[in-house]
């Protein structure tokens, strides 16, 4: 029981990190970046690549963050910025991001194949320790701490730094933001760097925890992230965190009455129920209704 709670916290933290990336871009730019899961996967594989060259795990996480962050900035320049310049509808951005995702995933597959991979033997901490009659492992504990730390760091950036203020202004009213002198391009680049970086880190951490990164790992997570965002509220950062833990705890709880193959069905069920009953989600503020 306690172990299940621990697992829920662990899985929820990864859901949150991943969903936060989606949410950041959605809240600032009003687009759903469907290449985000590809960046998640990229993170896991960048770390794999680095570690296969002998880079220690901790450093590999940082490398993944930076590489994915930069990939996010490039993604924007190539797939989104030209569309923004001519005021294309959000539909175009979504389609464009699908194209990028196809390319990234296929490139990963060409290098590593579609099967499950594994991180180099001995590169990940395998230690276990006990707290009371709980058996915990170092790896998951570190991941939880790191994930929560990143969430706190993101909250700090959004609430207390100048960049955060700029992002919030941009989300609120892009035209006014420009008039007030905010460097829109820089702010958007920062948004993508953070979003993709977090997504990449989520990928690494998930890859570490399962020790089986594979090229399609992003798809299943993408759907969980959608459930997280819809439950928590699209465009809401605290909502993404709340939704993530609600989902992870809910999934664990649902195992008591659902067979394990249908565990994923819980997320979908939740997603559709929320869409029916309260599409805004718990903390969502953005208008959801079609005019």
């Amino acid at each position, binding site marked *: 029981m306690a172990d299940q709670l621990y697992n829920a916290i662990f899985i929820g933290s990864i859901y949150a990190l991943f969903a936060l990336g989606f949410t950041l871009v959605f809240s600032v730019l009003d687009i759903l970046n469907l290449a985000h899961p590809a960046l998640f996967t990229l993170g896991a594989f960048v770390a794999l690549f680095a570690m296969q060259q002998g880079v220690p795990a901790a450093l590999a996480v940082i490398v993944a963050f930076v590489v994915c962050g930069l990939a996010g900035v490039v993604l924007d320049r190539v797939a989104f910025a030209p569309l923004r310049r001519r005021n294309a509808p959000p539909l175009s951005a979504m389609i464009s991001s699908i194209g990028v995702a*196809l390319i990234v995933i296929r490139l990963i597959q060409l290098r590593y194949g579609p099967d499950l991979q594994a991180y180099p033997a001995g590169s990940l901490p395998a230690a276990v320790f006990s707290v009371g009659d709980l058996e915990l492992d170092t790896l998951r504990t570190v991941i939880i701490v790191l994930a929560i730390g990143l969430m706190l760091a993101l909250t700090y950036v959004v609430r207390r730094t100048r960049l955060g203020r700029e992002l919030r202004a941009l989300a609120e009213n892009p035209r006014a933001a420009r008039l007030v002198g905010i460097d829109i391009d820089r702010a958007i680049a920062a948004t993508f760097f953070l979003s993709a970086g977090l997504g990449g880190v989520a990928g690494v951490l998930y890859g570490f925890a399962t020790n089986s990164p594979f090229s399609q790992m992003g798809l299943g997570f993408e759907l969980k992230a959608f459930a997280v965002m819809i439950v928590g509220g699209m465009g809401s950062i605290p909502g993404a965190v709340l939704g993530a833990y609600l989902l992870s705890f809910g999934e664990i709880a649902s195992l008591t009455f659902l067979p394990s193959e249908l565990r994923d069905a819980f997320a979908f069920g939740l997603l559709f129920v929320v869409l029916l009953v309260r599409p805004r989600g718990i903390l969502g503020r953005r208008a959801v209704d079609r005019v």
Partner: protein
Amino acid sequence: MDDLGQFLEAYQTTIGFIGLNAILALSVWLTLYTGQLTLGNAAFAGIAAYSSALLTMKAGFPFPLALASGALFAAAVALPLGATVFRLRGVYLAIATLAFGEVVRVAILAIPITGRGQGLVGIPPKTELWHIFLSLIVVAVVCARLRQSNVGRAWAAIREDEIAAASQGIRVRRYQLAAFVLGALVAGWAGGLAAHFDFAIQPDEFGFARAVQILVFAVVGGIPNVLGPILGAFLLTALPAILQPLQEYRDIFQGAILVLVIVYLPRGLATLLELGRTARLRTVGAEDVA
């Protein structure tokens, strides 16, 4: 003579798939024409594929009836899904159809009668090439007629500006729902044909990758008219078949062409047939929506 027979048979399969892909591309076109993104048509095709196959295999339905039943079933599922989601902003449709696709896949894997992961085998191969191409012609003509009618004009207005469209008295949600359900019906019909074309079907054939693929056909071919999706399906199905050695890079090619088209030629390749109008639309700033 045996070699020739084998060659024709392989050739026949590809031609069949080109036709099926064209029908599926048109099914997505309907929703894209109203300015919405759906990733659910592969799932609708899958629902109809399995149900029509089971009807012919287990319930002795005649082929046309099974096809129709499968398609209607898909449309019937699309109706409540669409009704829930079209109340909301566009992004929710993308999310909901993506999630729906996964739900269908999980359901197929869970229900014993579908053969689960192994797929459904031994489907009577009733589909002939002429079935496929006759269907394609009918669907294309219907779509073209709709496009030029008041309905199509309303769809175009919705795509350009939902608020202004509503002010003209257009029930935006209802028109979008109609396009979506009709798209599901068409996708379902294609799914039924596909099931009886190749003896067996598997859940993977109707998953996310397939949904993306038909989206690529429609977008690359072009949304402004009915020829676009057909052209896109023809090109992007035939080309990989011809360029067999480059099979490995197909996804990269499709992804790249998708991005290039959306960024540089948003009205798709079909716009190469009407460069003048495209240029005018570009000056007017309406190239993405008209």
